[in-house]
């Protein structure tokens, strides 16, 4: 197959694919992440949230109770 023959074959790409490719495909999922990426991103957020919670819990002083007389 010569490059010219290949070019002719590629030129016969169906109209529906040519028209579809006129516009980039829409991103699906959360902020453009989907599938494994979305799970990984969600897990990473959860870890950061939990770590932040632990750090805050350790740094916040315990509430002082009123002295009993």
């Amino acid at each position, binding site marked *: *197959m*010569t*490059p010219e*023959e*290949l*070019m*002719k*074959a*590629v*030129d*016969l*790409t*169906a*109209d*529906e*694919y*040519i*028209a*579809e*490719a*006129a516009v*980039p*495909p829409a*991103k699906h999922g959360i902020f*453009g992440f989907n599938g494994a990426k979305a799970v990984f991103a969600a897990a990473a957020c959860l870890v950061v949230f939990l770590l932040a919670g632990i750090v805050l819990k350790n740094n916040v002083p315990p509430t002082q109770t009123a002295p009993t007389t």
Partner: protein
Amino acid sequence: MTDRELIELYNKRDESAVTHTKQNYGRLLAGLARNFLRSEQDVEECVDDVLLAVWNSIPPDRPENFTAYLCRIAKNLSIKRLRDASVQKRTPESVVNIDELHETLAGGETPESGFDLHMTAEIINRFIGSLSAEKRYTFVRRYWYGDSVKDIAAALNAREEKVKTALFRLRKDLAKELRKEGITE
């Protein structure tokens, strides 16, 4: 305005059809022409030629898919300009793209029965149809529209390396498909 309404304007010989076509599709057509032609003046003239060609062909043509109809005319006119040009400073990206695809497929020899254009085209279409939307966009933009890797990556908001890898795998998969169907040996 829908494509059907636009075609009706052409049928009624309403010149606003040309204005609307330029508004809706001018950027797409210029982008496609730019993949074949280097001079902006040539690109602008090519787009004007496309609009004139469409005005002269509808009617009697009644395109089912107006976007594809415009793109095919634009590509054909761009290639014609490219061939008519006496001097090209460097090989257009679109020609490089087909050479890149051919290199992957050239490992297989054409069988003795010869090259069957429609069979090959059918297999390529079936292959394109089996791809995900993103891979299909990447393949068609690279090998039909003649886009650069950089342009495809920008459109997909992806890294160029990712697009290069995807194209490499797509070429390999297509080569395998053509060998399986006996188009190459």
